[in-house]
């Protein structure tokens, strides 16, 4: 059985689905019996969402998109003529 400290260490990776089977199972067993860690897991999930919402990346400005399109069109090989 893992303790809370170890459970917390694994939590973020758990949210990334990056734990291997045994580590994942141990954490889930811990969560089954520990309401404190369930609270922290939920908090971690919300914190992750905060990053996704607030640090989401800006959209490409129209002038950049235009430059990129020019670049692509200039470099794109002519399509083979229809047979």
């Amino acid at each position, binding site marked *: 059985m893992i303790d809370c400290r170890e459970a917390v260490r694994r939590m973020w990776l758990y949210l990334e689905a990056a734990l291997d089977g045994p580590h994942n199972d141990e954490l889930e067993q811990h969560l089954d019996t520990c309401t404190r860690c369930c609270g922290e897991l939920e908090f971690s999930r919300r914190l992750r969402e905060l990053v996704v919402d607030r640090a*989401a990346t800006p959209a490409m400005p129209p002038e950049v998109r235009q430059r990129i399109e020019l670049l692509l069109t200039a470099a794109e090989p002519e399509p083979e003529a229809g047979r």
Partner: protein
Amino acid sequence: MGEDAGPNDVIPGGPDGNNSVPAIVFKPQSATPPGRREPTPEVDVLDAELAPPPPSDATPGSFAAVVREHGDRLYGFCVRLAGNSADAEDLLQETLLRGMRAWPEVRDRDRAKPWLFSIATNLWRDLCRARGREVATTPLDALEADDDDFSLYQTIAIEDPFPYSDELHMDFLRLFGDEDVQAIFGSIPAAFREPLILTVIHGFSCKEAAVILDVPLGTLLSRLHRGRKKLERGLWKYAVANGLVSAIDEEDAR
């Protein structure tokens, strides 16, 4: 409903049935994505292969199509890597030029997105080196291990910044606007920030992120963990420093 049902005709529980549960209709699986010409089942394979290619601006698998699909994400990644839009634009353009040249050699075109991201990452490192900036590959494992066991959850519970709240932790997170989070995020050293950007914001798996950043998976996992701890610590420090909460123990905020 007596006759033999072909694959596409009789729908059990369809319009004339009085079944309110949506019926599961078994249709032959087709690998052709919607919107592309679909060969009729009677056409044999050879004929289908002789069909003319689709028009060039929609050519699946062309470099232009890949860029049109992933360009916005890639631009966003460049902004987060570079930290400002002027450098991000140059980085994006350079990435696309390099990508374009290498594209004919790329075999696994389903992996185009991580491939583009790794080009951008490498170019950015080159650029930093060329500018004499410190590149985030210096020994990090000995550095600032003190954040590793910081628990924001615990700290909020102990400091209790909103004595009348029954949603203490969520109220804490509600303090932060876009600019706040981005400022805090920007203060995390690149080596720890990049794994966060790739996994949390861009949805890459840890394995993919490790490949993009060219580090072993174990290193990636450890940096991801430490990046998150730095983020937690950063949020708390920022909240205290900007008077969003009043900490009992100001030492924590230093």
